[in-house]
């Protein structure tokens, strides 16, 4: 019984998926236009988790800024820290020791793996039909 067998209708339904829906973790709302079970349009609405970190960053020193940007993604903080550090160092024309470059490389590799391990289980359980 696929969509092609459903009766034709020009009535569509607008529903909100989230932000309270469990699968959106309270931070995402998707406004859906549905024709039966078929999604015609989807408009994501974000901002439920925004804490104004750029504004916070305006008040911080460069060293404090590193700590600020890691908070933006708890699953992969070091990528943000690396990007912030590289930009700051480039602007200040600071050269870092080779040892630091290698430590950064290793930490980002580990962070990448951790991030992957952190993303697959939620993907599985939020899309599990039995939930």
């Amino acid at each position, binding site marked *: 019984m696929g969509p092609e067998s459903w009766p034709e209708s020009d009535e569509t339904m607008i529903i909100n998926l989230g932000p309270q829906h469990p699968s959106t973790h309270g931070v995402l709302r998707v406004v859906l236009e549905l024709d039966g079970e078929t999604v015609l349009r989807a408009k994501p609405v974000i*901002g439920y988790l*925004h804490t104004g970190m750029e504004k916070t960053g*305006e*008040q911080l020193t460069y060293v404090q800024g590193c700590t600020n940007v890691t908070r933006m993604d708890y699953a992969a903080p070091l990528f943000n820290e690396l990007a912030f550090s590289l930009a700051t160092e480039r*602007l200040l024309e600071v050269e870092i020791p080779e040892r630091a470059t290698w430590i950064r490389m290793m930490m980002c590799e580990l962070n990448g793996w951790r991030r992957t391990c952190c993303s697959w289980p939620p993907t599985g359980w939020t899309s599990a039909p039995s939930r």
Partner: protein
Amino acid sequence: MTDDSTREEILKEEVAAAVLDRVKGAVAVESHGQTVVHIPRDAWLEAVRFLKEEQQFTQCSDLTAVDQLLRPDRPLPAGVERERFEVVANFLSHPRNRRIRLICQVPDGGEVDSLFELFSGTELPEREVYDLLGVRFAGHPDLTRLLMPDDWEGHPLRKDDAPARVPVQLKEAQSPR
């Protein structure tokens, strides 16, 4: 290192020179090893179209803006008129392995062309810039707030929008217990 940077220099000049040739009033500079081209506001869309369609810059990797309210005397290359906001867009060319940054000066309350028709992915970044800084984009399909509530007043990332302007309600709220 020197060989690479010399080759880089030549390539850099190529793209920047092509943009300068095409866009009247554009000014190119080098900033910390990166190519930056200042584009007049009325030529913004034309410059990006040129990059995309004739220079193989097929990705707009970022679009944002900076409020320069507190830096009215900031250094800018000759020929660029200072305005309050700078809209900044970064482009990437995969076939040429090159990046370029375009900057456009926009006055307070001013408007700049939306890049949506060329790079539809700029829809959300442009909404974010409008929401947080109040810069408007002409031709954007849905220029509404992205992060702040729809009824929010003001634009939080403006330098004159003080962080403590809105009192934190939770501190004063009566506890139910």
